[in-house]
């Protein structure tokens, strides 16, 4: 009974994380389309939301990696998964409050790894999987997106450079509707699957599924719905950072950065690499900007983003470990997760209330 209560809390927390993931990452998907004027904000966000939902059903390779290749399922308990999720959600909200587009994916993996290490030591971590499927792709992906976007924009300017800017800009704005849609679909395929993976991991840990199982349909459908709703609700604060503060983009740059981002994410999803879509799209934006004019990129802002990236895994791991420690104060039953859930919700409500009191935008300016 107690383990079932914990499982229900874990599934609820995972879906809440998925919601914050969509909420937090809306900016990555739609910022370039909005900043170049290719799409109106509400239309871009609604489209991104629908395509995130659809994308979640396309593949389960990333979910399999998260469920089976990062931490050792034999030593994982639903409480460890719960604490990891708390670490990820807390880090997402902290970076959101500073307007920093950090990685929800790395927050999730960091949180789960941190709580697993706190519970069972370093043996709980599958080092090969963590390094080969998470850390190395995490380093390669943004550089790859940077290079692909840079080369693409170079080609674009060579092909259409001598044509009248009006027709070219209009053409790339239409193109951005497609490239933005592809990016949203890619986001759904990769990011929604991380939550599916975590829920599957909890189900395996609880004995509800066998080791190595794929996510059941209800897990896929609920993760898809949560990320789509989050995407529809979120994003303005980080849209501003991503869409205008890194570089001022033209439509061709927006198209090449979104195309590069979608290509990198879809290819990575195919091989089950749980990428950070935030890293990839920001890499693409910087590549498209730097290829045109190196100084066009506001490297100071880019540096802050890189700082948040670097900090995400260890910070989420530390919060995950702390959450696990807090949970265990109340024993191994359901009381710990219940108390930590209530405490976390109270803290979130307090933070939002304080922001509202100070007149800072809350709902419509999230991210």
């Amino acid at each position, binding site marked *: 009974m107690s383990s079932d209560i914990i499982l229900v809390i874990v599934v609820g927390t995972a879906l809440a994380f998925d919601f914050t993931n969509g909420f937090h990452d809306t900016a990555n998907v739609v910022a370039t389309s909005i900043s170049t004027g290719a799409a109106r904000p509400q239309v871009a966000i609604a489209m991104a939301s629908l395509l995130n939902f659809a994308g979640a059903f396309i593949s389960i390779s990333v979910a399999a990696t998260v469920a089976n290749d990062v931490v050792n399922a034999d030593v994982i308990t639903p409480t460890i998964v719960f604490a990891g999720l708390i670490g990820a959600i807390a880090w997402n909200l902290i970076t959101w409050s500073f307007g920093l587009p950090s990685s929800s994916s790395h927050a999730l993996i960091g949180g789960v790894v941190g709580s697993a290490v706190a519970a069972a030591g370093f043996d709980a971590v599958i080092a090969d999987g963590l390094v080969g499927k998470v850390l190395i792709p995490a380093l390669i992906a943004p550089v790859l997106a940077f290079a692909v976007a840079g080369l693409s924009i170079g080609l674009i300017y060579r092909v259409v450079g001598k044509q009248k800017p009006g027709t070219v800009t209009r053409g790339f704005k239409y193109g951005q509707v497609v490239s933005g849609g592809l990016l949203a679909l890619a986001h759904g395929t990769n990011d929604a699957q991380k939550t599916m993976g975590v829920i599957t991991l909890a189900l395996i840990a609880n004995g509800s599924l066998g080791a190595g199982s794929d996510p059941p349909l209800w897990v896929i459908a609920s993760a898809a719905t949560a990320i789509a709703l989050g995407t529809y609700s979120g994003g303005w604060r980080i849209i501003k950072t991503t869409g205008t503060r890194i570089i001022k983009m033209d439509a061709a740059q927006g198209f090449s950065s979104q195309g*590069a981002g979608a290509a990198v994410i879809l290819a990575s999803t195919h091989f089950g690499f749980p990428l950070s879509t935030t890293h990839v799209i920001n890499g693409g934006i910087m590549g498209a900007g730097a290829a045109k004019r190196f100084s066009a990129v506001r490297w100071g802002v880019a540096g802050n983003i890189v700082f948040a990236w670097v900090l995400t895994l260890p910070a989420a791991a530390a919060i995950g470990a702390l959450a696990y420690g807090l949970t265990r104060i109340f024993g191994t039953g359901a009381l710990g997760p219940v108390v930590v859930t209530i405490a976390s919700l109270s803290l979130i409500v307090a933070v939002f209330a304080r922001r509202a009191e100070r007149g800072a935008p809350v709902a419509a300016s999230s991210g």
Partner: protein
Amino acid sequence: MIATLVEGKELLETVGASAVAGISVTFVFSVAIWGVARFVDLSRNERPLAAGAAALVACLALLATAAIVLVGIIVMTSK
């Protein structure tokens, strides 16, 4: 060690597929826009034959873009 090698191969394939897909779509789509821009210019200059050729290039490039996107999605999301 074997796992690392396999992942290394998969990473290389990811790099290759991303580069080919990202750059080819951008290139082909920019050819389509070039075709449209030329079509507009040539039509204004009353050169219907050349304008028609530019429109044909634009249409073919648009079709190619759509084909690359579709094939890319199907290949990359199937295992």
